[in-house]
């Protein structure tokens, strides 16, 4: 900080832009961060202290809020469930969208555009519209109160957008590559697995990361599908915990913070992929 300040005064003002821009940016950053930081810090306060001092550091650090969550088997079970659902969703979305995206971007046949429109039609259907019959279907398939019910539904609703994004990415590879592979005796499927997928690793990473974030955060589907506490994912666990300890805000905030921190760490590592996927999807959508 100090060295920057020195440099600012030494260099001509133009170099860092007008001061007011930084003031506004810092003010917005504070507004964005205060809720998150205060959740983590207030998770260390006793209920009595929270009532009087919602700001500032705790007078006495009540580690018990955090340790009691970390010692509860329910929390770890929910963490595990969320992780399993997230990984299975990402794998399912990757496998089932990359294959159609390959067909739509690199093979020509009659009715291709019609089929492509059929797949992307789903982008116009909000999940709320399908949710009641979806629930009945899952019940008939015996997938209520099963993590598979959530995984399959998340994959199905992830397909239209992901196929659209991947088709765009796949189309950037020059056609000559397909021809060269065909000449060397490579079948389309072989080309897909051995050439296209390895080349498209960054695009696949973007898509996978988006699916992971969406799955990790999903609340609507688990709320409908899951009944037993042992199958709850973290968002459901938070809601249940809030119902149980609703008046003990210190503990609730500790629980929330423990599910918040992994998300933010993941975000800091995967920001580039998330942004790339979102902007590609939005622009092509």
């Amino acid at each position, binding site marked *: 900080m100090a060295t920057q300040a020195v440099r600012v005064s030494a260099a001509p003002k133009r170099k860092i832009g007008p001061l007011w821009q930084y003031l506004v940016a810092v003010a917005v950053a504070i507004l964005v961060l205060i809720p998150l930081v205060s959740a983590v810090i207030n998770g260390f306060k006793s209920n009595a202290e*929270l009532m009087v001092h919602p*700001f500032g550091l705790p007078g006495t650090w009540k580690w018990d809020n955090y340790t009691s969550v970390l010692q509860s088997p329910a929390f770890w079970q929910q963490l595990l469930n969320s992780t399993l659902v997230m990984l299975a969703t990402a794998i399912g979305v990757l496998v089932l969208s990359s294959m159609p995206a390959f067909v739509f971007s690199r*093979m020509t046949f009659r009715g291709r555009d019609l089929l492509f429109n059929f*797949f992307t039609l789903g982008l116009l259907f909000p999940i709320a519209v399908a949710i009641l019959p979806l629930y009945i279907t899952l019940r008939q398939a015996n997938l209520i109160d099963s993590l598979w019910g959530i995984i399959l539904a998340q994959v199905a609703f992830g*397909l*239209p957008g992901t196929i659209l994004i991947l088709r765009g990415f796949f189309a950037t590879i020059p056609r000559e590559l397909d021809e060269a592979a065909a000449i060397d005796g490579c079948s389309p499927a072989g080309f897909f697995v051995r050439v296209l997928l390895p080349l498209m690793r960054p695009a696949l990473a973007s898509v996978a990361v988006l699916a992971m974030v969406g799955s990790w955060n999903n609340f609507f589907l688990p709320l409908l599908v899951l009944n037993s506490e042992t199958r709850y994912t973290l968002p459901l666990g938070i809601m249940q915990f809030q119902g149980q300890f609703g008046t003990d805000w210190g503990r609730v905030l500790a629980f929330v913070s423990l599910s918040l921190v992994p998300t933010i760490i993941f*975000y800091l590592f995967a920001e580039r992929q998330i942004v790339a996927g979102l902007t590609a999807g939005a622009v092509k959508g």
Partner: protein
Amino acid sequence: MESSSPAVGRVVATRRPRIRWGRVATIVGFLLPAAILYSGLVLLPVVQAIYYSFYRWNGLGPLQNFIGLDNYVRLFNDRIFVGALSHNLQLVVLSIVIQLPLALGLALLVRGLVRGRATFRTIFFMPFVLSEVVTGVIWNFIYRPDGGLINGLIQSIIPGFKDTALLANPKTVLYALFAVITWKFFGYHMILYIAGLQNIPAELEEAAQIDGCGKLQTLRYITIPLLGNTIRLSIYLSVLGSLQFFELIWVMTTGGPVSGSETLATYLYKFGFQRFQLGYGSAIAVVIFLICFSFSLFYQRVAMRRDFE
């Protein structure tokens, strides 16, 4: 060998009418798994919702109580449903008028920074990645009457200020929720605008400035028109999102107090899943679908047509 291969390829290509079964198998095999899952869990349910909406049905037993359009008549005579629809529309307007200009302003601001651009972008975009449950619970804490941050802040400025519960008042609840929605989603639109701004050649703006345009004029006549497709897209996504709000509102208010923050989706959830009126719930779903679908078609035809070329 190598010289003859392209010729062989050409021979095969000229004999088009012969079906190459290997290729067909690849196409079918690659499309089928996705098509089955997608048809069964995305498309079919939408068709089923339309079908169910003509029945009175509790979700169990056979569908036999056909009641025609009664569910729809009941829907539009229900004050709470009309209220929910108007709340969604208010959120649409608030988002376009407040959230998107804010996002655009911050995108321009971040672009203008020489140092710390990436850091500020990372911070501003952070809330979008969090779950709506985490967001909702944290903001419930911030808004709470006894010792919440908002009341604490006001009381530190005005001693003796009486606690207000913004979420418990039907007059303020929607605006309190909108503040949270803005906090969570402005970063997404900002990211879109930043991506759009990167596609504008710097020379154009520089040329305008050389020709004597002030900063605001450059913005008004060069930057914003060139950002048109991104702005239209961001409005489109924002409207569709605002029509479908559920999770955040469910976590914070479950649509209350006295339906003051009811949305189409919370209303659907209450009737479809809490009261098991699946026919009526499906009619709500169909209305949500029709609103979103007709908006999509209209908007893509009218506003976004030029962006597709």
